[in-house]
């Protein structure tokens, strides 16, 4: 699912009160930042510093780079406990919390399953699904807080940060922007993960639409994540299914067609938008600070989104 391009302000020609747009390719998609207010040259340097943070996290979390930290963990963490930096340890700990609260519907150890279903570059291998299912599970990841070390208790286990990486990177990028004193900015990763800082010049909030749904949300100091299984499909005995897998069954999730999560934290919003696709309903353990929309019927081409829009509007009005 891709939300539509936000309403970007037009860059004025004067240098003070400028609007700057910058972008970078990372995590297999395009990240973009728009910053407003103040000196143009400084805004651009802040935007670059924020995007550099995203690039840095891509280098750490990418499955497709053999020199990434995640690749290093996937190669070696079953053989010995691997020391990681504090920020990565904190990310893994946060992922464990969502895994527990979602009853395993969100699980970053899903790497072997994603490979078996052909969602990570190679061909699908149905015979490998059962074996992959047997080795995954966040319960098999030891997180030693005293030494910030990570160890996999089961061979074959592999992390796949695809469901949380964009949100995590945006979380850090937004922190860079806030620390630099910029009070008006919008960032997105692949248009499905969004962070809004303040409001655009002259506006009450950043208006963001969800493509193909008619949903429009106004964000102010808030993060939003949109998930849907439709982006990439695979053929199963039950028909064509999307790329969101249910870690509990090992099969593509047959749940909701679209989820939208709003909250303070882009990482949590990302993780929970995936978990909700699997769960189809809000679990008790989901943080109360997160607001969500679960649209079970979005796969149907003729689906009327009036209900969805109303639900989300209700959620937004509670803020």
């Amino acid at each position, binding site marked *: 699912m891709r939300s539509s391009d936000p309403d970007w302000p037009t860059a004025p020609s004067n240098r003070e009160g400028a609007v700057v747009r910058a972008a970078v390719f990372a995590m297999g998609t395009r990240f973009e930042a728009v910053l407003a207010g103040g000196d143009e*040259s*400084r805004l*651009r*340097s*802040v935007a*670059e*510093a924020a995007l*550099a943070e995203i690039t*840095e996290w891509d*280098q*750490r979390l990418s499955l497709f*780079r*053999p*020199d990434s*930290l995640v*690749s*290093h963990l996937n*190669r070696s963490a079953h053989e*010995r406990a*691997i*020391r*990681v*930096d*504090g*920020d990565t*340890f904190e990310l893994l700990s946060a992922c464990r919390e969502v895994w527990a609260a979602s009853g395993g519907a969100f699980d970053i150890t899903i790497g072997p399953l994603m490979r078996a279903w052909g969602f990570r570059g190679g061909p699908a291998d149905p015979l490998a699904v059962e074996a992959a299912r047997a080795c995954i599970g966040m319960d098999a990841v030891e997180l030693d807080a005293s*030494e*910030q070390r990570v160890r996999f208790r089961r061979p074959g286990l592999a992390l796949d940060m695809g469901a949380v990486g964009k949100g995590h990177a945006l979380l850090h990028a937004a922190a860079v922007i806030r*620390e*630099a*004193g910029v009070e008006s900015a919008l960032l997105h990763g692949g248009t499905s993960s969004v962070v809004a800082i303040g409001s655009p010049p002259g506006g009450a909030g950043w208006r963001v639409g969800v493509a193909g749904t008619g949903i429009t949300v106004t964000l102010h100091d808030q993060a939003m994540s949109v998930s849907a299984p439709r982006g990439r499909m695979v053929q199963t005995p039950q028909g064509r299914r999307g790329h969101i897998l249910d870690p509990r069954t090992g099969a593509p999730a047959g749940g909701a067609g679209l989820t939208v999560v709003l909250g303070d934290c882009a990482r949590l919003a990302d993780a929970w938008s995936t978990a909700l696709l699997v769960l189809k309903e809000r679990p008790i353990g989901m943080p109360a600070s997160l607001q969500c929309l679960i649209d079970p019927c979005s796969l149907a081409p003729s689906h009327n989104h009036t209900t969805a829009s109303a639900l989300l509007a209700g959620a937004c009005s509670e803020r």
Partner: protein
Amino acid sequence: MDMERRAFLTHAAGALAAVSLMPDLLPAAPILRGEPLNIGVIGVGKQGRAIIGELQKLDAVKIAALCDIDPGRLEGGVRRAQGAEGFAEYNKLLDTRKDIQALVIATPTHLHKDIALDAMSAGRHVYCEAPIASTIEDCRAMAQAAKNSKSVFHAALEGRSNPIYTLARSFFRSDSVRDLVSMRAQQHQKTTWRTPGSDAAREKALNWRLDKGLSTGLAGELGTHQFDVFSWYRSEYPVSVRGSGAVRVHKDGREVADTVHCDFVYADGVRMQYMSTLANSFEGKHEVFHGSNAAIKLAWTAGWMFKEADAPTQGWEVYANRQQFHNDEGITLIADATKLASQGKLKEGVGLPNQPLYYALSDFIKSVTEGKAVACSAEDGCRASVLGILANRAVVSGETVTIDPSVLKGS
């Protein structure tokens, strides 16, 4: 061809490559003997943070201290490196943490010399980012101090520790390229090269690379690493460099060029052309050697050989991995081919399993803890850094600068 024969040939191909070149191209990590080596990192900016990440992969070291004058950066560094003590002044670190045996210097270039000299005087081993200094005098002072010190001094010219570059160098020196006719390199990025700061004074300090009085420009700050690859491969330095540069895009009042060209000439007349820009990222950072038998392209985490049709077959390359570049087919240079071939994983060997920085830091640690010969000495660092400084002079002046071999020498 049946599968068994194919598997055998694939295995044999990998074995041939390794036997004829190097038996174990991916170096082992430094060995942990007893307690890990206590290490301090001075300068926790972008490069310092990358260094922390790579050091944390090495069980043989413990990051015991970090130093940065910027409180925010220091705090971020300490958050990443659990257990590290934070210092605002490096002298205090040297005075109070006698248990720290080795230091990594990742400050702005013009601040390296004083820290390195004080560290070596205090008996600490030094890993110093490159260029090692921003003036010829400072480069020489550091090389001289390292020569007179018992401490290990490792200059961070990462190509010299990179397994792919080591492998490609063995090809280069074994005549696979044959008659070398030209060389070129580039480093293209899209960035302003400007860093935001909390106030005007801090911003000025952080943007030392845009201060023409302190910076060695694109040629020095970035090019030094790439120029050294050619010097290392050829075991000689160029005799002159002509340069040009301009602010093409980032017209924000800066005087340091955002786009530069250099033309180096070697004693045999072969030239190396270099281009660096902050306006466009196409094809990133790489080096190319052109010979009558083959071209070699190196891109830091990967490398390729492009053979001419009439070049003799060496055996190993027949079943090697290949990548298409428009009309050209590159043979992927893979480190540790024997091991990968034996596991049927040659394709997985494309690209380094760790960042180039990891191998440079590993070499330094091994020199300190295992007595391994220094992969890139202060003298190597001095020569490469002075070459970068002279190239920047050529860029700034727009003229040809003669490179007297005596100018490059550090000690």
